[in-house]
């Protein structure tokens, strides 16, 4: 049944974020082409202003698309789980756990897809309009290889290795994606405990959980942040590594806790309007 739930959730979700990403990538091409036209550089009054305006609008579009997708995931979860449509979902022969896992996995998966779509739009924009933005690809390639050499040199004399840091960062990204999915579903689920104004209650629950979790993460990372201020590369990298590790562990614990409370509410305290 989990597979069937996933299939139908995918069919339910794919259209809106796909349209947003297609729109963003088309905008990237247009922005890139506009940037690379010969209009620029001929000394027209306000030329720089307009060029910068296009950049600002494009960046705003990128942020807007990412934010809209996030709002869409929240609305979709609320509608399918707690509005009238919930009467069908919760009377399917599936467990609350299967429902929550499906919703969380799909939100996490779509976050990754949106991230890839946003990167692709930025890449398109840079490739098409890069020249007029003062971007020299040869310099970029040289810069990246220089960075690699410098990183290797820095990590050669310190523990952890550059590979360990990369693996940790990848793991951290994966945890963050799952955490965001659970955070979104749990906030909306907590809001369902309210008798009235459940959407408002969900937003409040989200803000409250975010404040608590961020505070705990920051508090636990303080000792390691202090280490990064010491004038020692080895110690700085170790402290940075450990602070990310601690943040990730707390995020995992928070994910598990939020998920367990959500599952309990869905199993024992479900009360559709």
């Amino acid at each position, binding site marked *: *049944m989990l597979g*069937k739930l996933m*299939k*139908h959730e995918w*069919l*339910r979700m794919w*259209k809106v974020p796909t349209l947003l990403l297609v729109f963003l990538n088309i905008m990237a091409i247009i922005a890139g082409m506009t940037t690379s036209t010969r209009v620029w550089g001929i000394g027209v009054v306000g030329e720089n202003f307009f060029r910068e305006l296009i950049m600002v609008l494009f960046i705003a579009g990128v942020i807007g698309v990412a934010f809209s997708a996030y709002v869409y995931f929240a609305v979709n979860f609320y509608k*399918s789980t707690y509005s*009238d*449509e*919930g*009467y*069908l979902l*919760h*009377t*399917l*022969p*599936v*467990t609350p756990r299967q429902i929550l896992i499906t919703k969380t996995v799909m939100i996490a998966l779509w976050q990754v897809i949106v991230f890839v779509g946003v990167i692709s739009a930025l890449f398109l924009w840079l490739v098409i309009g890069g020249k007029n933005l003062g971007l020299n690809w040869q310099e970029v390639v040289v810069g990246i290889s220089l960075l690699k050499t410098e990183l290797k040199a820095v990590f050669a004399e310190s523990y952890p290795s550059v590979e360990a840091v990369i693996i940790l960062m990848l793991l951290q990204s994966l945890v963050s994606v799952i955490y965001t999915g659970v955070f979104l579903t749990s906030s909306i689920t907590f809001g369902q405990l309210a*008798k009235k104004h459940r959407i408002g209650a969900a937003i409040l629950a989200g803000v409250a959980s975010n404040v608590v979790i961020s505070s705990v993460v920051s508090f636990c990372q303080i000792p390691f942040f202090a280490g990064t201020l010491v004038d020692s590369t080895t110690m700085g990298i170790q402290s940075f590594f450990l602070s990310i590790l601690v943040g990730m562990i707390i995020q995992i614990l928070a994910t598990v806790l939020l998920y367990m409370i959500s599952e309990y509410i869905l*199993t*024992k*305290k*479900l*009360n*559709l309007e």
Partner: protein
Amino acid sequence: MEDLIVIKDLSYTYHSYRKENYVFDEFNISFTKGKVVGLLGPNGSGKSTLIKLMNGLLSPTKGEILIHGHKPGVETKAVVSYLPERTYLQAGKTVKQMLDYFEDFYQDFDKGRARQMLQNLGIDEKAPLKTLSKGTREKVQLILVMSRRALVYILDEPIAGVDPAARDYIIRTIIQNYNEEAVVLLATHLITDVESILDEVVFIKNGKVILQSSVDEVRETHHKSIDAYFREVFAC
């Protein structure tokens, strides 16, 4: 006769303004197979809460509900076909997509039967649900629910939102599609419209069963139709 639904010592409370309110307190009832039962009562009597409890949409405070020997959960949801008062269909889908959805999740769903009923009512399978009227969406929902070969059908106000002509079709649909091994629980205020198909009635008032009897018995004892007797019992 075998009891398909057994409700024992059921209590359900909710809190409001720091006060514990009882919807049900030590509520007992059972339903046997092969019957069409009318769950009747005024607004606020607890009918919808009882239906939600049977469907696992609410959890009892105390006591238990057993459907085909199981507490509400995956096993019971596989044998209970539930029509809520609300339209639960996804507006963004077509009728056909909803047929596929039901076929995927319910092993007892008979797609052929659903298609036949859609055809009888002239509803296009390809039509997006958002383009259909509220009444037609309710018909589609009823067709989906009645196309399951379930053991328990729980229908909450199945004819409230449709015109009188469609009501007759819906009532015929209910009676033609349920089998002798199943029980149909029908909660409605439109008693006259459904009276002809009821075998049994349950009157609920303030969370208590005040009558559970066969329709014939009510008519013979009180010399009244169910609708007339209901009006007498629940007169304001």
